[in-house]
């Protein structure tokens, strides 16, 4: 936008920085409170800094309730869901973009509609399904539904990426004697990989953040709990342990932040690709 005049641009930049500060403030406060010693958290004045950072809150978090185990559980569930749904969605997206067959459009519309199904509404039947499968109180009860729920969106989003790979490339591969399977995994898969990364952000986050299923399906065996449940332990009826809550929140947020920063560029271009298409 070259036609924007200078004073206006300066004003816009200053307000952008102020907004950035305001948006980042809750996260800053979370990390700050996690490092504050207990006395400062409960002091009458809320100072936006601390001169004596302490690890007490983190120590409390990791000593209580096998927090490390919950962290590992969350990580296992999210990784399996991300990998499984990416592979399954890649195959399905290839089918609906590179082939013409009966019911193709119907299927696409079904994927779109499936995306809109409020998964939370299915908690009750899924609870009984998991009970019948003997998966209640196991990580499987979280993995299976999340694979299913991240699929429709992943297929819909990957479609654009698969479509973008030129038809001619496929022809050339076949002329050079490549089999369909070889083309799929050695040529198409690496080319679509950035799209897979962008898509996996969504399945990772929805799985990592899941609170409803974790609360409903893991009812008696707390060794199978995931992070969101561990966080709630620090809410107490008499007085909330804010230091512990903030430390646990920090531990839960950091992996997602790291993941986001790593795929940030691909995410933006991926979204552009999916939406433009």
């Amino acid at each position, binding site marked *: *936008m070259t036609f924007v005049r200078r004073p206006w641009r300066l004003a*816009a*930049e200053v*307000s952008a*920085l102020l*907004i*950035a500060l305001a*948006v*980042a403030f*809750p*996260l800053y*406060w*979370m990390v700050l409170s996690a490092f504050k010693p207990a006395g400062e958290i*409960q002091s009458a*004045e809320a100072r936006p800094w601390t001169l004596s950072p302490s690890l007490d809150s983190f120590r409390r978090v990791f000593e209580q309730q096998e927090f490390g185990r919950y962290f590992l559980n969350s990580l296992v569930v999210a990784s399996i869901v991300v990998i499984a749904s990416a592979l*399954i969605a890649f*195959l*399905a997206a290839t*089918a*609906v973009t590179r082939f*013409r*067959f009966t019911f193709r*459009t119907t299927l696409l*519309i079904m994927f*779109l509609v499936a995306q*809109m*199904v*409020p998964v*939370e*509404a*299915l*908690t009750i*039947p899924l609870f*009984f399904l998991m009970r019948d499968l003997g998966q209640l109180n196991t990580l499987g009860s979280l993995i*299976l*539904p999340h*694979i*299913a729920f991240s699929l*429709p969106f992943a*297929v819909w989003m990957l479609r654009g990426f698969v479509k973008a790979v030129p*038809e001619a490339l496929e022809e050339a591969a076949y002329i050079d004697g490549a089999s369909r399977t070889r083309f799929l995994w050695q040529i198409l898969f690496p080319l679509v990989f950035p799209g897979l990364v962008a898509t996996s952000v969504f399945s990772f986050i929805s799985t990592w*953040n899941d*609170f409803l299923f974790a609360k*409903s399906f893991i009812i008696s065996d707390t060794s199978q709990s995931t992070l*969101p449940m561990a*966080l709630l332990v620090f809410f107490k009826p008499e007085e*909330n342990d804010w230091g512990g809550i*903030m430390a646990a*929140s920090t531990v*839960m*947020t950091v992996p997602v*932040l790291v993941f*986001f*920063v790593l795929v940030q560029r691909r*995410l*933006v271009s991926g*979204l*552009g690709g999916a*939406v*433009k298409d």
Partner: protein
Amino acid sequence: MNATARRGSGWTPWLYLAPALVVLAGLLVYPLYQLGLISFLEYTQAQVSGGEPTTFKGLGNYATLFGDPQFWQVLLATVVFAAACVLATLSLGCALAVLLTRIRAVPRLALMMAALGAWATPAITGSTVWVFLFDPDFGPVNKLLGLGDHSWTYGRYSAFALVLLEVVWCSFPFVMVTVYAGIRAIPAEVLEAASLDGASRWRIWRSVMAPMLRPILVVVTIQSVIWDFKIFTQIYVMTNGGGIAGQNLVLNVYAYQKAFASSQYSLGSAIGVVMLLILLSVTLVHLRLLRRQGEEL
């Protein structure tokens, strides 16, 4: 595409589709069927444990639900709350997307990073942090505003307002980033040609950019409607399960409370069916809007 078709694809696409279809059939379609079924049954703790046989109640559960004034109150609260969230998220997201196009790289990066941070924050930790920020005893907001020990979660509207702030904070980045990507995708020549032709800034926005951004705006609007309508975690955590005497219940939390707190699984399922039908109609609108743009599926 002709070339591929000529290769006699036959059953290959179905082979590729098989894993997806199996997973979706088992974990989406079948539970959907079950949801509908349970909503027509008498299904409480007694039936779950096998103490009493399940009986068919027809539309009895729906009659109970629609006869309950609390249901209508919750439905109204859900619709109004979701509408407020969507409106606030979209206007903030679009305004900041336009702002991003007007500034140099450093402030743009700062705003992007802050927004990505908010976006990446899990709903549950976002909720705990915002509750802490507005905590009557130790939160910085009350101290800054000099509100003493005013409790934000005590009143119905202030509790909803607090949840709304958190929801907007964590969902505007998606709108901002997507719309910004959309604006950047508009070729610079088009905008230059328009301004050379003497079009005003407003005219460029209305006649050039808005029509080109329409598909993106439709997508982010529909996504926001869906996300905000079925909100669960924020309400559950921030208002402690639906607020004092259920004043902050929304449909999703209401269904959960009915099913898992009071073991009325059939009533919970009926609420789920109502939610499903409402969101399905939103989806139909989405499809019609996409069709009107002549998008090829």
